[in-house]
């Protein structure tokens, strides 16, 4: 599989987009709907599956598409091919506040496991698959669920997550405790486990939950500072306190239904 090396620049600070420069004949792939702008002469097509071009049979491509779908991506992939004689640009925007990090899969040993839906775009040949969490307790309490994405290939993949993103190297035997949900990506050589917070008091009042994700080296991990779960909890709390009328309306609907129900009850004839 020959990968398409691509040049790119990431713009913006908190609401980012990545501009990719395509050499003539080169391709980039992205999630449908991620494209922000594209130069003329760039052919845009949509393929079922991950657009890696590896599978030619329709059913096997469809199966790959379904697996992609489970990993939080679309069934389809958009492919951008430069048909012109000179370089052309295409840009992909992040779907929310946060950062885009370029990860060279060749440096990561060809495989990277990322949070569901974190893949934004990449060089052609980057395959998006499914990484099934075989550890039940990690799946339940690890904060990432049972399904993550597995990116394979040796090109650059652009991964997006909310908040600030940081990359960390874990030496052999080095462990890091991470709040569940803050994990964005990890190399497959990293051990991903959960650790009981240890103290009920910490769990209840420390606000960190009952479990930590424990990541042990060797390998590289990427962390996000603001998981969407945390953000949505904050926003939901604000929405509820800001709009007490909503709850009253629901209560009235329930009461009205109960009254109607009682009034329309009848005796058997």
């Amino acid at each position: 599989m020959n990968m398409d090396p691509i040049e790119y620049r990431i713009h913006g600070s908190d609401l980012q987009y990545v501009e990719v420069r395509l050499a003539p004949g080169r391709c980039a792939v992205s999630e449908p709907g991620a494209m922000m702008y594209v130069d003329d002469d760039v052919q845009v097509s949509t393929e079922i599956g991950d657009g890696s071009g590896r599978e030619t049979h329709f059913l096997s491509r469809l199966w790959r598409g379904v697996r992609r779908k489970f990993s939080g991506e679309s069934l389809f992939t958009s492919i951008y091919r430069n048909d012109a004689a000179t370089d052309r640009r295409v840009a992909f925007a992040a779907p929310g506040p946060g950062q885009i990090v370029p990860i060279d899969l060749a440096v990561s040993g060809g495989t990277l496991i990322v949070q569901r839906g974190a893949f934004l775009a990449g060089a052609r040949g980057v395959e998006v698959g499914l990484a099934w969490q075989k550890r039940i307790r990690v799946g339940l309490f690890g904060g990432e669920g049972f399904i993550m994405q597995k990116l394979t290939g040796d090109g650059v993949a652009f991964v997006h997550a909310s908040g600030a993103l940081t990359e960390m190297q874990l030496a052999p035997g080095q462990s890091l405790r991470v709040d569940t949900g803050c994990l964005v990506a990890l190399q497959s050589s990293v051990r991903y486990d959960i650790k009981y917070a240890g103290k009920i008091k910490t769990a209840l009042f420390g606000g960190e939950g009952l479990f930590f994700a424990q990541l042990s080296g060797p390998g590289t991990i990427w962390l996000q500072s603001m998981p969407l779960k945390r953000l949505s909890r904050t926003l939901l709390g604000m929405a509820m306190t800001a709009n007490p009328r909503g709850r009253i309306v629901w209560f009235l609907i329930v009461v009205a239904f109960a009254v109607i129900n009682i009034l329309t009850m009848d005796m058997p004839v």
Partner: protein
Amino acid sequence: MSQHFAALLYGRDLPPAGLKVSAQFVGNRLQVGGDLRLEAAADAITVETGGFDHDTLYLGWTDATRGRLSLAPLDTVARATLISSAPATLETALRRHVRSGRNDRGKWLLLGGLAASLAVLVISVMLGYGLIVDWAVRMVPTEVEEKLGKSTMAELRQSGKLLDSGPAVDAVSSIGNKLTAGSRYHYHWAVLEDSSINAFAAPGGYVVVHRGLILAAKTPEELAGVLAHEVQHVENRHTLKAMVNGLGWATMATVLLGDVSAVAGMLAYQVGTTHYSRDLETEADSQGLAALVRADIAPEGMATFFRTLAKEAPQMPIALLSSHPATEERIAAIEAGIQALPKKDYPPLAIDWPAVKASLDQDDKAS
């Protein structure tokens, strides 16, 4: 005799994805080939399980110059070679690693088994729903039903509209007793001074007929048809069944939907209970016909009376939500049931029907 295996070496100064090396055990020492030329004593090596799937084997040791190092076999062949060629000091640790890889298989099997048995339970509850309700109802003794019926009657009596004697009550009880000969219930018959066309049965054998129904019935056989229907509600403990069913639906709605979607819960509850009560009405109709035949009373009265009822009562807007079978449907079912019965001449009921009606008219004037 030494065996080489391909491996990835991880360390502080090495590439993050690991460095591809060739390694082998020589006696009690691990040798890592290539440019590195590393060596470690087997008793200084720890066996660790790592990787995303917790199935990667890592041999870890501390090197004097390079610090902490980790070596992982590149593939399954290399892994097998490593395990088979490892010195005895590492054997127990390696065996523990192999075992730990199988740990969660049992858990997944258990989880799958639990899910499957839950599915079986749900399906069997759905299929055997009637049987479960029947069983629950059978647990209730007849005395409890009597008490329920008695308290209902006591409330009615307080309204002062309940007739316990008179030609109308006599007519109702003479027909009713014919229908209920040999029953385990002790029946009480009464007439309620209410001009609407209705009749109902309270559990434990209390049957009440509205005055309006008697006035609307053209023959005593029509009254017999209604009574035969009502008696089946008592005999088959329909009130209790409806209560148990309602309880079941309410519980299920709460369990499945939680208290968040209270509206949806009540909808499910209502659809569930009304559908159930329609089933019970249909059952009472068909068994009522059989009771009429047993009591030697012409069954056509039931059909003709429900025809009258169909004209009086407005059509229910939504068939599914009505607590009674759609009237047309119901009459058709009853008529089909009558057709299926063997042809027979039934003796007319020996009741002076105009006199019974007249007695009620007089009561009306008196009040």
